[in-house]
C-alpha cells in the first residue's frame, strides 16, 4: 500500500476527472453515431436500408409509403445511413433517451 501513497496524493491535488453528467453535458464528438432519423420527404421507400440492416429493425412498405423502425432493436452501426441512396437517413450525435414504454418509429410519406 505504501507504493500507492504517492499516487493517492497526486490524485488528491490534481484536477477531478469526474464528468458531472446531469449538471454538465459534454458536447458529443463530431462523428458520434446516435439516434437514427429519416427525413421522410426525401425518402423513396426503396427499402435498401431494410435489406442492409444487420439487426433487421427497419421495415418499409412502398405501397402505403411507410417507413418503420424499431429503435429498441437498432444497434447504432450506421450501415443504413451509408447505404441510403437518397441520403435521407442520418444519425444525430446524441443517443436515444431512455423510455418507460416500448416505442416504434413510424413515418408516413407521400406514395410515389
Amino acid at each position, binding site marked *: 500500500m505504501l507504493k500507492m501513497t504517492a499516487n493517492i496524493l497526486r490524485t488528491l491535488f490534481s484536477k477531478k476527472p*469526474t464528468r458531472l453528467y446531469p449538471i454538465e453535458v459534454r458536447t458529443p464528438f463530431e462523428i458520434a453515431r446516435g439516434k437514427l432519423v429519416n427525413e421522410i420527404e426525401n425518402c423513396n421507400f426503396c427499402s435498401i436500408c431494410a435489406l442492409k440492416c444487420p439487426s*433487421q429493425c427497419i421495415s418499409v412498405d412502398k405501397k402505403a409509403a411507410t417507413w418503420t423502425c424499431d429503435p429498441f*432493436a437498432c*444497434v447504432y452501426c450506421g450501415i443504413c445511413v451509408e447505404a441510403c441512396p437518397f441520403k435521407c437517413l442520418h444519425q444525430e450525435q446524441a443517443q*436515444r433517451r*431512455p*423510455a*418507460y414504454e416500448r416505442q416504434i418509429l413510424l413515418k408516413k410519406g407521400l406514395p410515389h
Partner: protein
Amino acid sequence: MFKHSLQKAQIKSPWLLHYDCGSCNGCDIEVLACLTPVYDIERIGIINVGNPMHADILLVTGTVNPRNKTVLLNLYDQMPQPKVIVAIGSCALSGGIFRQAYNVLGGIDKILPVDVYVPGCPAKPETIIDGVVMALERFSQKKW
C-alpha cells in the same frame, strides 16, 4: 411518518444489482464505467451491491436464454419490495441483433415487467445514468 422518511431516504440512495443475462459485455463494461471515477454515480448516492437482498434496482443487460432465465427469476424474487427493473441495451430491450438466434427468447420484458428501457448498443454511461434517474421516479410511485 417513519415509513415516509424511510422511503425518502431510499430514493436518495438507491442500491443497484447488476446481472449480465447473456450480453456481449459491452453494456456491462459501460455499467461498470458508471461506477468508476469518470462517471462516478456514487456521488449521487447510488451504490452497486452484489447481494440481491440489499438491492432496490435491478439492472439487466443482454438477452434471455432458457438457462439464465431461472437465475434472473431467482434474483428478482430475492429482491425486497418495492423494486424496479432497468433493461439496458438493445439485447435486453428486444433481443437486438440476436433476436433470430435459436437460444434467445427475446428481451427481458418477456420474462419480467420492465420499468425503464435504456436503448443503445451498448448504451452510453450518460444514458444509463438517465435511465437510473428515471427508474427512481418510477420507484417513488411504487407501493410499499
